[in-house]
């Protein structure tokens, strides 16, 4: 079996948002929507820090779909649009999605976005990889682990573009893969482990 996952080394994350923009382009994500965000947890603004000057901490955390083993979004989807594919990726069938948005409420990571209206793209044409499906109004969308890129043997765009080399992508089921070795050695953590979602995205802190 093959099960794709990712490790993000937060010690190397500089909060540059290259992954945010890379994801937006690759996946033809319209204006005012993002599949991937970077948060500065606990701080009041992006360049602020937690604490009082000069006793401060600043930690950027990229957050997109965590591709959970126990995806709460999938459990609540009334029509089976959200599903886990053969590679462990949690995906949405846009033809089936009825836009009820229960999944958005269920996701503890706020990883999903909804097409409320006709998408606005600047520039006003479809960009990114042409195999990526254009989503109609009224459906939910989110990170697919760049299914279209990875099916060509490439890394997801956020991994390829990350300038500080904070991200490692690969097969969690292969015990000799770089990602499996990293998980064994660095003992990364999950976001919100108390939610019991068992994500395939790991964080080194």
């Amino acid at each position, binding site marked *: 079996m093959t099960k794709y996952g990712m490790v993000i080394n937060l010690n190397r994350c500089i909060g540059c948002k290259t992954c*945010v923009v890379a994801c937006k382009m690759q996946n033809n994500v319209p204006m005012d929507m*993002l599949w991937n965000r970077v948060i500065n947890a606990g701080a009041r603004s992006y360049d602020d820090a937690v604490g009082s000057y*000069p006793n401060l901490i600043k930690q950027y955390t990229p957050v997109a779909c965590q591709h959970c083993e126990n995806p709460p979004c999938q459990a609540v989807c009334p029509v089976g649009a959200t599903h886990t594919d053969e590679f462990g990726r949690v995906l949405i069938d846009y033809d089936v999605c009825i836009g009820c948005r229960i999944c958005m409420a269920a996701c503890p990571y706020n990883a999903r976005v909804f097409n409320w209206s006709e998408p606005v793209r600047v520039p006003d044409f*479809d960009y990114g990889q042409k195999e990526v499906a254009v989503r109609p109004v009224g459906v939910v969308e989110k990170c697919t682990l760049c299914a279209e890129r990875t099916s060509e043997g490439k890394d997801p765009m956020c991994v390829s*573009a990350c300038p500080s080399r904070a991200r490692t992508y690969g097969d969690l089921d292969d015990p000799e893969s770089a990602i499996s070795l990293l998980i064994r050695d660095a003992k990364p953590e999950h976001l919100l482990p108390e939610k019991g979602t068992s994500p395939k995205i790991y964080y080194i802190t």
Partner: protein
Amino acid sequence: MSSTLSRRNFIKSGAAGAAFLGLASTGMLSACSWIEQQAVGEEEQSEEYTAYTYHSVNCGGRCSLKCTVRDGKLVNIEPNDWPDSRYSLCCLKGLSEIERVYSADRIQTPMKRVGERGAGQWEAISWDEAIQMIVDAADKTGGKDSILCIGSSGLDYKFPSLPRLIGAQQSHFLAKGIVGTGIDNGIGNGIDQATGDGTSGAMQTEVTSWVDSKVILMFGNNMLETGIGDSQFFFDAKEAGAQIIVFDPNYSVTAAKANRWIPIEAATDHAFLLAMISLILENKWYNEEYLVKNTSMPFLIDTKTGKLLRGALPAQTTDPATGKPVQPPAPFKVWDATANAPVDHNTAGAIGLLEGSFKTPDGVAVTTVFSQLLKTQEPYSPEWAAEITHVPAETIKEITELYATSHPALLGLGWGGTDKYAISDVTGHAAIILGSLTGNIGVSGGGAGVVNHHFLAANGGLGAWPIPAEFVKAETKVHNGYLPLQDNPTKIILCQGNGLQQMFAWQQKTNEWLDTLELVVTIDPFMTPSAELSDLILPTTTNFETEGKCGTMLSNRNHILLQGHVLDPLFESKSDFQIEKELAAAFGVDKYLAADMAEYNNKLLSAGKPTVAGITVETLLENQCVQRAKVPTTPAVGHLDQKYGTPSGKLELYYENQIEYDQALPTYVEALEANANNPLAANYPLKFSQPHSRFLVHSQFSNSQWIHQVCDGPRMSISSADAQARGLSTGDVVLVRNDRGNFKVPCTVSESIRPGHVIMSEGWWPAQLVDGSLQNVTNNQMVERQAKLKYSMVIAYYDTRVEVEKA
């Protein structure tokens, strides 16, 4: 799906070294009329191809980019595949080009001003009319030195030939003497006189060598935001065990990711460095053997005049290239212990004493540079520096011991931080003395200089386009930064890029000057603030558009990068090359220029160093527009042989041209406004610096819609203490003011900001502010002593005080 490969697209993609995908259209057609205006052949709109270019916007990254063009439009950008895959990267700005190329701010045709300057009233004119306007203006002013060519940083084609061919002035930041721009030259003034380098103080070692560093100190440098392409090497060094210590008034990303952050008062880095020198001398942590062998520390100074003692002029030699006689410089004198007398420093077998004061046989009292340093350093104790820097003396001692006793150790400074104060020459001078005392220059993992990548490695391997020797540029008599203030011959400006906003402090003075000129021309793809202030605007291409099979080329990170053909020029834009050519034609001197960029680039390669031998435009196109230069795969380290481009061939740490300013060795001087004792502090208590941010490269991307999707736009960041005292909350619009002027912008209250300081990232266009321009308040005062240094005076943008209040 069927595919119809048109001949044109086949040629085009082949020319770009493309991996042709040849897939049919998915039926996506633009509804955007302004893009359709310049559509390239309707029948060819159904294919996708890959092409390559690089990003030259001057963050130092110079990322090579793999671009997908579909239906004639740029639709995808990825990192290109470099021979050295560590450089296969990009950042959010390179990716954002997917929108900026098609920005609504693109200038579509040449335009001339028809209303008041800056009022935004324009009339579209033809290229012929535009060129004629420039020729007519030159006829009126007499041409020659009445024309000043300005080129923004990041432009790889700053009119390389035209200024010489027509005898115009041209400003450049590395220009020697008075014509420097006053930008990024402050630290270099302090360093390059010692090393003989011509890189404005750039670090002597490649960032990839930092894995060898035991200790890395960084002053006023936020490389994890401003040099994103180098960030992986920062972490590689840290993971390899380097102790990284960042000195910054504010809690920058780099400070947060370092092993340790030392909050320091702004504009006091030099005080900290001076105290480090004292501690190293006092504790004898210096490398005596290194100093005697490789530096001017044993050279003798005439204690009466302060001048270095010199021997007789050697015999003339002949330059093998030109056949002309050359006069080698006179040797310096050192005190030879065996002879107990002064001897020429280059006498075989002579070993100069490092320390001591002597009387020469002629009765001249002399002392060594090192002994003089012991004397000049007397006032600079850690306790003294603690008062100024607000860093505890114990911390200064602890860090100095760590730096001096760990080898190799690196001392980094920032062009976007330390450099922008009037004391940056002293800072640079102190830094190179520290690197020398500890034997860290010419050592992998060592170095003292600006943390910057794009000056080292195989850079500079390219030659130049030949122009006959009788053509010379006009010499500028007034420093670029003082052009708006002092009489000078300039009557016509040809400005490539956003120079009129970015390259002068105190905008109001710049604007008043522009009104006295005959013709102000801005050449840019976008309607920048500089364009807005001009009389005539010429639309140029972005790095994604070329007329022929290639555009510009550069040498960076041990590789040669080429701008391949991605798109045809949009609208009526022309490349900088084409514009130079048409201007040259109008002045009757175009016969000296290349036919096209391919010929131009091939000349630069064939006239280059052996490191680029065998590389041509054609081989580049066959290799995805990026090829490795013929250089070792180990990190580049300058001066490994301990040879320096100075008269003595050694690190010359004593600056005779600064004797009259008491800076032959670095002494403490206060910053202009950003010092605690300036009386302006009463009315303007806040020090205002304008560091670079991850979202912009100088003023570029101010108008990027995609960048605005991921950032808050211009913000004045203020500490919670200062915000509370002024009743400010995040989002409030504030008036930022001093005696020079004011502007309005929303504020962000942040714990990352040191009380007493405010920061706003430089470069935002006035259009993005609530009112006014950031440059309305910046300090245009410069320091006379720097006119004697290698790159002349620095514009002290950050040496600025303001008050901030609710608007």
